[in-house]
């Protein structure tokens, strides 16, 4: 029984002893150790910061599209790269309301469909007060079923608002505050151009993703779809939702087939529009994120390689200047494995310390990134797997580059070593 535990116990003792010695050695050569680990520190700090920034960006984008379900479909005009339609202007290629007539009946996989009409940015007035650059968007009643933005006060649009082309609007709280309307502003009248619109609801704000362009506040005002045409000719897109995530692909195909019919796209010619699912946007983003991660990983790999060579160098110096000590240890009964372990552990501890310092710097960088105004990466944080990854990398570097010096130390002949000057 005693013999059974002897071997692992001896190993644990050796490990403890080696860590003790390694920490002592590193502490005795503080400056040298610090300089040696800089490669590892930079590598780990940069990889964690890049991953943190990407994580932040992803969280931001997810929060952006989370108001849409993943089975949401975005339909927008798009000039083909080839075919007879490739030279038409954006305006010529625009959607017309009639292109969508009958779509609900012909596309059974669609649960909801809402056209959105844009007439650009206008100035919205209330009495003497006004707000510039307000995005005017026309929506159908079904819009409320597609994008999950609850109405805080008042009501949503009804199909009747659209049918009767009522002059009503839904606004965001920040526009209400900008115009200094009372909290419950239902029934107040806003003016856009020569038209007046009665507020019927206040809709929840959506997190805006506007990189570097938060210098001016952006506001949004919603009108019934047809009402928008009173302000001018509108540019259309459409949002749809498939009845379930499983029917998403079918819905995409049905919409495409239907629109090719209504937009008179001849067989064999490319589409003059795009039909994308929110899911496919996410997939694209994930692909980009992966590429950025890999590129960053490559750079970090180089920095870790350089760091590793530094570690190997300093370990060789350490072995060389402690040759007599190694000789002595061997003379008093240290086995090869004991010497090997001692130097491997020293290199590992060095790398782990580098990893730890790197992680601290990575956290500082992340905090910095998260607090840069106008970049909006406030959700940046280091995920736990990145911490594990960093330590994994640092450890591998320690083992890989510590191996050679440690083997060199273990192979020293005690007689030669004790004679070493």
């Amino acid at each position, binding site marked *: 029984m005693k013999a059974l535990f*002897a071997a692992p116990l*001896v190993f644990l*003792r050796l490990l403890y*002893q080696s860590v003790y010695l390694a920490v*002592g050695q590193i502490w*005795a050569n503080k400056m040298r150790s610090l300089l040696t680990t800089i490669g590892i520190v930079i590598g780990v700090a940069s990889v964690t910061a890049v991953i943190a920034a990407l994580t932040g960006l992803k969280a931001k984008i997810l929060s952006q599209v989370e108001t849409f379900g993943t089975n949401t479909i975005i339909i927008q005009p798009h000039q083909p790269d080839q075919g007879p339609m490739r030279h038409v202007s954006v305006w010529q290629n625009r959607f017309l309301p009639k292109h969508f007539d009958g779509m609900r009946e012909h596309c059974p996989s669609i649960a909801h469909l809402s056209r959105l009409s844009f007439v650009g940015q206008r100035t919205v007035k209330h009495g003497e007060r006004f707000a510039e650059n307000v995005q005017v968007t026309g929506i159908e009643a079904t819009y409320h079923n597609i994008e999950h933005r609850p109405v805080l006060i008042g009501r949503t649009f009804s199909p009747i608002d659209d049918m009767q082309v009522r002059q009503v609007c839904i606004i965001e709280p920040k526009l209400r505050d900008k115009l200094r309307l009372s909290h419950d502003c239902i029934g107040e009248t806003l003016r856009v151009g020569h038209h007046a619109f009665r507020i019927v609801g206040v809709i929840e704000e959506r997190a805006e993703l506007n990189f570097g362009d938060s210098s001016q506040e952006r506001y949004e005002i919603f009108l019934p779809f047809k009402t928008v045409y009173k302000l001018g000719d509108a540019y259309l897109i459409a949002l749809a939702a498939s009845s379930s995530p499983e029917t998403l692909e079918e819905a995409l195909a049905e919409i495409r087939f239907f629109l090719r019919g209504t937009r008179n796209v001849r067989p064999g010619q490319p589409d003059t529009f795009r039909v994308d699912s929110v899911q496919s946007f996410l997939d694209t983003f994930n692909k980009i994120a992966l590429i950025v991660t890999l590129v960053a990983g490559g750079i970090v790999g180089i920095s870790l390689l350089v760091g590793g060579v530094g570690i190997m160098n300093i370990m060789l110096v350490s072995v060389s200047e402690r040759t*007599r*000590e190694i*000789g*002595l*240890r*061997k*003379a*008093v*009964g*240290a*086995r*090869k*494995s*004991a010497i090997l372990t001692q130097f491997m552990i020293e290199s590992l501890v060095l790398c782990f310390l580098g990893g730890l310092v790197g992680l601290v710097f990575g956290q500082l960088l992340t905090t910095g990134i998260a607090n840069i105004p106008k970049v909006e990466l406030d959700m940046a944080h280091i995920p736990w797997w990145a911490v594990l990854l960093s330590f994994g990398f640092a450890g591998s570097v320690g083992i890989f580059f510590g191996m050679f010096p440690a083997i060199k130390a273990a192979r020293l002949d*005690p*007689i030669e070593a*004790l004679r070493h000057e």
Partner: protein
Amino acid sequence: MSKHPHKVVIRLENITRIYKVGVELIHALDGVTLELGENEYVAVMGPSGSGKSTLMNVLGCLDRASSGQYELDGAEATAMSDAALAQIRNDRIGFVFQSFELLGRSTALKNVEMPLIYSQNGWWSRHKRARQMLERVGLGDRVGHRPNQLSGGEKQRVAIARALVCNPSILLADEPTGNLDSKTSEEILALFDQLHAEGQTIILVTHEEHVARHAKRVIRMKDGRIFTDLSLEEDRTRRDTMNEHFGEVSK
């Protein structure tokens, strides 16, 4: 042999150690046969190049003989693995070096503890045993001192304590007084005498006659062979005779 009433610790049988330098073969040990009993106190003497250091290395299991047989405590050491030799060095042999070989950054206690780190059983009691051993060599009050805070004699005492901490069968001392002044040398040699009186087997390599005089048996080497192997009295008689014949001869 009636000369060795106690149990035999070391038995060398026709040991050779041949180095190859370029194409030349150097016979550092050229057929050494030797038997050492328990509690013997032997001085190995000889000019440099006589093979006494090589003999020390072979006896200390730091080096392997090219041919011949080496038995330590009844166990054949010639054909052992590196790990087994390390184990033997750990618990059967204690080394004392001319230049002390202490770890500069460690305290006296840590230095003495070091061999116990690598031992099978001594690990748990290493503090206690190291402290006891330092007291035994008269350094009970220097436990926490680093080598640079100790005098040369004290350093060598720490080294001796380290050599003895694993309770070895033999203590191998290679010119232990080589770096010390004569007064301190006498103190260290008195310590060896005391250890011998307490039952320790000691092998002392030296080229100084006054150091060898502390031993009970003197082995003189030349050209890798044992030249004479006599008790201290016989050695002295032989030396006196030679001096009469040839005048004063050193060594």
